[in-house]
């Protein structure tokens, strides 16, 4: 019991240090402007805050719509117990993305302008509306958790009956938003390196978001069982791992076909700055996790699933950073490394994400243990033993 307590205070100290530094950097950003607080330039108008906080923030929030689709639309009941943590992550993720945008925009007080000024030809206009609407939908999807906590049963009933509408809206908006972050780069065919520029960019962003949604759910469940003493729902994670195999395989094949048809495949075998980053990305995101998960032994074990999920997440984070930064460096003729203030602000958002997630799981019924768990687990276990028996018999 003492070990987790020490660990908790250690992380608390880390959190406080990051937050103090973050507040200091916030002053630097808003008093000194972007020039004083970032390494952004006309060569690199988008840096770490767009590449990580926004691009990866949105991507890491993809578990929300992926699991909502599986459970609410496809009615896959056994995933029910992991939906809430993913909705929480998605909601938190989008709130943090909005906060990060306030730092990155040159004139953040004009952030509402797309509401009344429209340019439907602009992908950024679509992005702006998707962020606004999906954050609202996520708030509505999250609301029942709060209502349940305060036992507002009548409101809860109304919300539950409307939930299908919110979920369908959420899936629609997510699909548009995840892909639109790739569409942003379609207009830069002569800036973005051929490893990444492709007419299929929106499709790649969408499929990878689903993969990340699954990986993130595995990651979260594993972390929650480690740090919050939750029971690890291994059978669910195994199913998620299996789904991840399929999505990663689809992504990998499409990526191969795309490179092949654009005559970019040969570039993979020529040593270059971009090649190293591309190989890092593709090995981390697809090849290693896919290779791992194809072995039943790894796919069935908690550690194996966790490791594959983490590699996959790191790989797709690398992908988003490659698209925003690595892929344009040679075209604009320069290298971008974030300024320390940029790193601190990003660290602050990550820390805030972890902290609020921890608090929310403590005070809100995120993990359905108290009420719904008993019947759900009964059903799950029944299903598991049914599946598990023939497998063991085969061994």
């Amino acid at each position, binding site marked *: 019991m003492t070990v987790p307590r020490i660990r908790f205070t250690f992380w608390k100290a880390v959190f406080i240090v990051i937050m103090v530094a973050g507040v200091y950097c916030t002053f630097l950003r808003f008093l000194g402007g972007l020039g004083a607080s970032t390494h952004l330039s*006309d060569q690199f108008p988008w840096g770490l805050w767009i590449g990580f906080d926004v691009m990866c923030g949105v991507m890491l929030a993809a578990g929300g719509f992926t699991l909502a689709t599986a459970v609410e639309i496809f009615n896959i009941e056994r995933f029910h117990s992991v939906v809430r943590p993913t909705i929480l992550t998605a909601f938190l993720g989008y709130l943090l993305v909005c906060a990060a945008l306030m730092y990155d925009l040159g004139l953040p007080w004009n952030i509402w302008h797309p509401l009344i000024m429209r340019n439907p030809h602009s*992908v950024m206009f679509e992005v702006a509306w998707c962020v606004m609407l999906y954050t609202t939908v996520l708030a509505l999807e999250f609301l029942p958790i709060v209502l349940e906590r305060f036992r507002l049963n009548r409101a809860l009933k109304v919300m539950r009956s409307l939930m299908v509408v919110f979920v369908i809206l959420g899936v629609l908006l997510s699909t548009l938003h995840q892909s639109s972050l790739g569409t942003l780069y*379609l207009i830069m065919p002569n800036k973005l390196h051929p490893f990444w520029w492709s007419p299929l960019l929106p499709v790649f962003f969408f499929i990878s978001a689903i993969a990340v949604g699954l990986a993130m759910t595995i990651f979260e469940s594993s972390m929650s069982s480690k740090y919050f003493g939750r029971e690890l729902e291994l059978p669910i994670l195994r199913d998620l791992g299996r789904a991840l195999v399929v999505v990663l395989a689809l992504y990998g094949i499409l990526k191969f076909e795309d490179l092949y048809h654009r005559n970019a495949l040969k570039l993979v075998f020529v040593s270059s700055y971009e090649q190293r980053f591309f190989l890092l990305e593709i090995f981390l995101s697809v090849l290693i996790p896919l290779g791992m998960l194809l072995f039943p032994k790894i796919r069935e074990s908690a550690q194996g699933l966790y490791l594959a999920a983490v590699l996959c997440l790191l790989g797709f984070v690398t992908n988003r950073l490659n698209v925003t930064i690595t892929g344009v460096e040679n075209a604009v003729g320069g290298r971008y490394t974030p300024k320390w203030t940029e790193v601190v602000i990003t660290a602050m958002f990550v820390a805030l994400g972890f902290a609020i997630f921890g608090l929310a799981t403590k005070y809100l019924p995120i993990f359905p243990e108290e009420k719904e768990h008993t019947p759900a687990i009964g059903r799950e276990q029944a299903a598991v033993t049914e599946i598990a028996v023939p497998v063991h018999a085969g061994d």
Partner: protein
Amino acid sequence: MSKGILYDATMCIGCRQCEQACATENGLPYDDKIAAEEFTSVHKFTAVMTRGDKFMRRICMNCDDPACASVCPVGAMKKTALGPVTYDKSKCMGCRYCVAACPFRVPRYEYEKAIPGVRKCIMCSKRVAAGKQTACAEICPTGATKFGERDELLEEARKRIHDKPDAYLHHIFGETEVGGTSVLLISSVPVSLFGYPTDLTERALPMYTYQVLSRIPDFIPLFGTMLGGIYWITHRRQDVAEAEAKEKESKGGAR
């Protein structure tokens, strides 16, 4: 109809009077130090570049279908009917997508300012609207920078190249690049020597994104119906299963 600028590098003497006139017109500082800067910036919208005895102007190309105007979420960047691509700071929210999207790397952002904006040549839109020439064309002592109807300037450029085929590269930069630009460049050496991009498509860049964006209105009802349909079917299956289970139970009880 649509105005343009023809810059003939072979006629340019590098006097930099266009830089001076541009600074005055836009209320920007200009001195020897700024004159020596051979690149555009937040305080310099046009620059005369020197490579040996060759000159070339850097200036916003004022594209016919500009990427910057297409990507701007709030419509702060606009292609006017007369030709200039203008910028309205009061609309701008500072996302810098225009800076990222411009194939000529023209828009400059005021990173150092607390209330920043985008700065670039707007082809003297006010003067042009008033029927006047751009400041740079008006001041040019040799006629290297010429203002006029884009169609006529294009004809003139063709004629100049035709009349003196040895003095020019047989290419009018801006005629078809990214769908055509209001500014046209002709020169005896490749413009790439001065940092202009050469891998540009003839297709206007906004088409790349518009072919995706234009499908969204069709996509929403289709995808929404599909999701709703799947929900209906999967939950129907559950209802049926539950009803059957109940029936079985009651039968079992009857026995």
